[in-house]
């Protein structure tokens, strides 16, 4: 089966610092990756995505980096704010799985004021 995992289950950062959340995947055929944010008691929210033909993509305060050589994905959050405290999931999809998304177990980010 697919394996999409996170390096660390929890991460604490000081407000204003940058955060980096990592994710490893096992399927070299994965061609699309997504980061989701889930706040306590709510459903996941889409943050940013990246296709396998890219190695970097930037959004508002977030950057996703993809290293296909080592099958590693990271989410960087600039100037982390208390509102960024949440669980972050990476997910991957491959052509062969059609519309099935495989999610990792998540990293819990805590922002210290």
């Amino acid at each position, binding site marked *: *089966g697919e394996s999409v995992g996170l390096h660390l289950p929890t991460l604490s950062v000081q407000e204003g610092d940058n955060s980096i959340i990592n994710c490893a995947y096992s399927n070299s055929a994965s061609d699309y990756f997504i980061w989701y944010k889930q706040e306590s008691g*709510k459903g996941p929210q*889409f943050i940013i995505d990246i296709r396998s033909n890219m190695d970097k993509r930037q959004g508002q305060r977030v950057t996703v980096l993809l290293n296909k050589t080592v099958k590693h994905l990271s989410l960087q959050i600039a100037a982390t704010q208390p509102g960024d405290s949440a669980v972050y999931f990476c*997910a991957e*999809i491959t052509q062969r799985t059609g*519309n099935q998304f495989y999610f990792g177990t998540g990293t819990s980010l805590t922002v210290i004021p």
Partner: protein
Amino acid sequence: DAGITQSPRHKVTETGTPVTLRCHQTENHRYMYWYRQDPGHGLRLIHYSYGVKDTDKGEVSDGYSVSRSKTEDFLLTLESATSSQTSVYFCAVGTVLNTGELFFGEGSRLTVL
């Protein structure tokens, strides 16, 4: 807000009883999904639908059935609930094949005693 409503939001039931969770959307998205979320497992796909009366199994479909008789409604049924089906269930909707922009509902917490 993708106009997704899940009901009920909380339910406690006994082993062996049938349970139906409802997902209602107002945005006319083609694809609808049911996920379960458990500690240590992240989000796992149960079933999904790619149109009215068109459904397919996900990675953890045993013990669950779904129906989609209208574009806006996707029902998840546990014919005979078991304690292993205690979980938080999320409905998600999307429009474009193979993109990650799934919109999630707020979740339904099911406890099977």
